[in-house]
């Protein structure tokens, strides 16, 4: 299906990432955003509030983030595409409802413009420390899809893709951008509507009395209907059967019975190869591979350039979808290369996944950064140089000591001058 021309503001713009995400959401057919102001994501909400009326869409500012995400799921079951917009602290408040979203299989998108954490942290500056939270933040077992864009153009493109994935797999999809990307102004090309591919909702078309809201198709994803179409839906966050009724009472004593929650993780795990999107470059003869995502990828490019200038063969792997994690790809690379270097704006999150998937075949070096800024490319280059020269197999993640760390803890840096 193609996008509706009414939703698409075709043209070439100079805009920041947050604004681009607002345009992307509308172009993807989003009809409802429930949000709450939080730095640094507010511009996306403001943009959507401004342009929503052109397509008959609604922006509502709820009383808090718990309300925002609940309203979004409600709107989703009323038959429209929906999104919420937030940053770290708001994201933490949404954790309970993300589990509900996974359970009632409501398609919706969460835009998280990450900032420096934990807690209130550094609201106006960047961070990438919510990556593991995206995967594990709610209680219980579930799987999500998370995308990490690295430019305003990508915030436009991947917002559309996020909507498409959420409709296809009926699960929460997270856009894990960061303040740097959100507040960076660049050229953004909004293509004509007929060039934008849109995934329609998987509506049920059979006879009414036969409809089961959680009966899966072959790809383990069930079909949806709208509230108000006369199906007398019953949707619950309790563990439920295909009808949607809580399963508790049907479990017979002493009889072993599988819970249907298994499908919630399997529908992503078994379709992972179709979901995962990566870019790789210079892998053929690489000795060291840099694994990065989001804004760190753009910094890593420079770091790799410096290292290549010194004659080191470096491969560049970018995770566009971070969750589901590309286990196989990393494992396959690990058997070929000496080491992975992972620069991320946190003190170690995705690096542990890289460590896990490399199965001891390659060393793993973390180039950390606490947030409120991006890496110095020299640090990445030095870490690459170290990784290529390290002969020993090291049984832990090597945390590279950055210039910033040395400056703050050894260089006589004084606060409150």
């Amino acid at each position, binding site marked *: 299906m193609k996008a509706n021309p009414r939703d698409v503001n075709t043209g070439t713009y100079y805009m920041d990432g947050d604004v681009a995400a607002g345009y992307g959401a509308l172009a993807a057919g989003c009809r409802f955003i429930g*949000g*709450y*102001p*939080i*730095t640094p994501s*507010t511009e996306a*909400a*403001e943009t959507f*509030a*401004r342009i929503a*009326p052109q397509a008959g869409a609604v*922006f509502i*500012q709820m*009383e*808090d*983030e718990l309300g925002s995400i609940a309203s979004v799921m409600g709107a989703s079951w009323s038959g429209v595409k929906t999104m919420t917009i937030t940053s770290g*602290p708001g994201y933490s408040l949404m954790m309970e409802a993300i589990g509900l979203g996974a359970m009632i299989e409501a398609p919706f998108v969460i835009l998280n413009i990450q900032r420096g954490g934990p*807690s*209130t942290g550094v609201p106006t500056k960047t961070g990438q420390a919510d990556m593991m939270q995206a995967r594990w933040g709610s209680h219980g077992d579930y799987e999500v899809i998370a995308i990490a864009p690295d430019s305003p153009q990508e915030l436009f493109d991947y917002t559309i893709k996020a909507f498409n994935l959420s409709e296809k797999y009926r699960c929460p999809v997270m856009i894990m951008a960061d303040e740097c990307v959100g507040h960076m102004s660049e050229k953004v090309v909004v293509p004509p509507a007929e060039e934008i591919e849109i995934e329609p909702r998987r509506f049920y078309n059979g006879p009414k009395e036969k409809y089961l809201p959680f009966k899966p198709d072959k790809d383990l994803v069930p079909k949806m209907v709208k509230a108000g179409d006369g199906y007398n839906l019953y949707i619950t966050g309790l563990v439920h059967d295909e009808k949607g009724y809580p399963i508790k009472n049907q479990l017979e004593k002493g009889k072993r019975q599988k819970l249907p929650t298994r499908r919630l993780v399997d529908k992503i795990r078994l379709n992972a190869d179709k979901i995962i999107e990566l870019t790789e470059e210079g892998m053929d003869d690489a000795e060291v591979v840099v694994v990065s995502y989001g804004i760190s990828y753009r910094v890593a490019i420079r770091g790799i350039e410096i290292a290549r200038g010194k004659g080191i063969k470096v491969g560049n792997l970018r995770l566009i979808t971070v969750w589901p994690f590309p286990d196989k790809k990393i494992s396959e690379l690990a058997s070929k290369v000496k080491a992975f270097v992972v620069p991320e704006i946190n003190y170690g999150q995705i690096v542990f996944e890289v460590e896990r998937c490399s199965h001891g075949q390659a060393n793993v070096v973390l180039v950390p950064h606490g947030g409120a800024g991006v890496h110095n490319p020299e640090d990445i280059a030095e870490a690459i140089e170290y990784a290529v020269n390290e002969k020993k197999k090291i049984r832990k993640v090597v945390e590279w000591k950055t210039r910033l760390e040395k400056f703050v803890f050894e260089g006589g840096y004084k606060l409150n001058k």
Partner: protein
Amino acid sequence: MEPLKMIEKDIQPMDVHPMNDILRMDRLPHIWCPGCGIGTAVTAFAAGLDKANIDLKKTCIVSGIGCTGRVAGYIKLDSFHTTHGRGIAFATGIKVANPDLKVIVFSGDGDLISIGGNHFIHAARRNVNMLVICINNFIYAMTGGQVAPTTPLAAYATTSPFGCVEPPFNIPYLADSSGAVYVARWTALHVRRLTNSIAEALNKPGFSVIEVISPCAMYYSRINRLGDGLDMMKFYHDNSEIRHGEDTKNLDIGFQTKIIVGKFVDRERPTYMDSYNKWLSGTKKAEK
């Protein structure tokens, strides 16, 4: 002698700022914009603390997030800058765990009434002994001017670009109906009255609420073309009316309409700790 010279003659040089004991001078200048009313409210608060004659050592202040959320950082008491909307919940913990302390929550309208609305009504219902000072500037200012639960109908904000369509909360009415024992409203212009009100409420046992209408020159006034901070003060001067004891139902604020100020509620109810201790002594007796 010229009038100005006369004043200068009366002014005696001081070694320290008169509010040195109450404000954290090492943190000044503060972050608030020119024309903002929060600074005025802080001054009134500092004067009120002084006037209330309470033990400052046993007094602490809690803030949430936002422009007003930064107040705690400038007051030289044990001060807590917590998460968005949770100032009252945090303060409840402090008060219940150590009832000897005097607890003040100083935060904004979005923080206390929107995201923290649930804690606001529940603390009022319980009548937890604390003073809540709510700066109402009709907008989320820290994040750049989004619509707030207090934004008057038809007023503009960045997330209500076509005018606010939601009716706002009447904060004194909300506090009153939830069970607060002391409810007052002043504007940033009524410094003397606000100071007295704060001093009075600090010595009042129970859940007290003082709403302070405050200009936001940077966002609310600018988006709605209301001029600068001084223009807003002039507006307060011309349009506020003191009506003590007014029924809180009648205190709605419209867009640039009359603002009714004054002390509306002053009553007695057993505080949470009174009831709790009564219950506790009851169970002790029952076990004997």
